[in-house]
């Protein structure tokens, strides 16, 4: 019940932040209306990164404590993280096309990093899907989550250095292109969208975690059912053998 309220609060907050960003804030002096995409784009990116951080930490927790609830948290965070990271890339593309003229280019380090983040997240989810035994699945997922998280800072630095001497003026640093005509409103819009998205994130995390727990219970039941069915079949077999001798 409390979760449902959280959901509605999140919905209202997002709608409010969207209206603010689309209509209330004046257009950027340099980027025009395209700049408005920044609000959901940055919020999505930030929450995607937060999600994968949660996945990694929950994975460490699982390896330490072997509590499958931590694994459920990791799973939920990974799925929600892939969602928000995909949003971030979409937002980046929708921003890039009007501002840069292209949907994608390799010189923006954040775009490249976010693409790798998405690939890592999808890989994590596929790994989980191909493992049946819950303990093995949780262990494998935890290892992959941890190694991926450790890789992120390395990716970050390598992509930034990559651009290095290569800075073309067309694809310069997005934050330098900004020229808000009302800096205060711009900050409020950004923070507001971030807060709204965070509420939605919390709601989605709770629901996805609940789903993970129930799905695990169903899975366990299925496993136990197969084991006891196998045992009954074996016992029945033994009886048949005895009576036929």
């Amino acid at each position, binding site marked *: 019940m409390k979760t449902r309220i959280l959901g509605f609060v999140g919905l209202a907050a*997002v709608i409010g932040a969207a209206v603010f960003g689309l209509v209330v804030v004046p257009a950027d002096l340099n980027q*025009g*209306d395209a700049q408005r995409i920044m609000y959901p784009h940055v919020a999505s990116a930030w929450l995607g990164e937060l999600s994968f951080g949660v996945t990694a930490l929950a994975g460490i927790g699982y390896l330490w404590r072997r509590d499958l609830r931590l694994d459920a948290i990791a799973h939920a965070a990974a799925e929600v993280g892939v969602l928000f990271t995909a949003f971030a890339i*979409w937002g980046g593309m929708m921003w890039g096309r009007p501002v840069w003229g292209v949907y994608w280019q390799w010189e923006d380090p954040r775009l490249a990093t976010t693409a790798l983040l998405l690939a890592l997240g999808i890989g994590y989810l596929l790994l989980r899907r191909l493992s049946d035994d819950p303990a093995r699945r949780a262990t494998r997922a935890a290892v992959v989550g941890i190694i991926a998280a450790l890789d992120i800072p390395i990716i970050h630095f390598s992509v930034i250095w990559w651009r290095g001497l290569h800075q073309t003026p067309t694809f310069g640093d997005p934050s330098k292109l900004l020229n808000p005509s009302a800096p205060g409103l711009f900050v409020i819009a950004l923070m507001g969208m971030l807060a709204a998205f965070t509420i939605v994130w919390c709601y*989605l995390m709770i629901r996805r975690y*609940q789903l993970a727990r*129930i799905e695990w219970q169903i899975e366990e039941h299925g496993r136990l059912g197969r084991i006891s069915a196998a045992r009954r079949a074996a*016992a029945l077999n033994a*009886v048949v053998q005895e009576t036929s001798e």
Partner: protein
Amino acid sequence: MTDVGFVIAGYAVILGGAALYAIALGRRLRAARETSMKIRRDAEAAGPPDRTA
């Protein structure tokens, strides 16, 4: 597409996508809860586990 078109596309997919995911989660959760209830009911109806051999 004008700039505004891209902005709309951006917001629509992101906000719409989040909404769709929330709805899908709600459906998956309801289905899972029903299955879980059914399992519990079947278990209670079946009584204590029978011991064969």
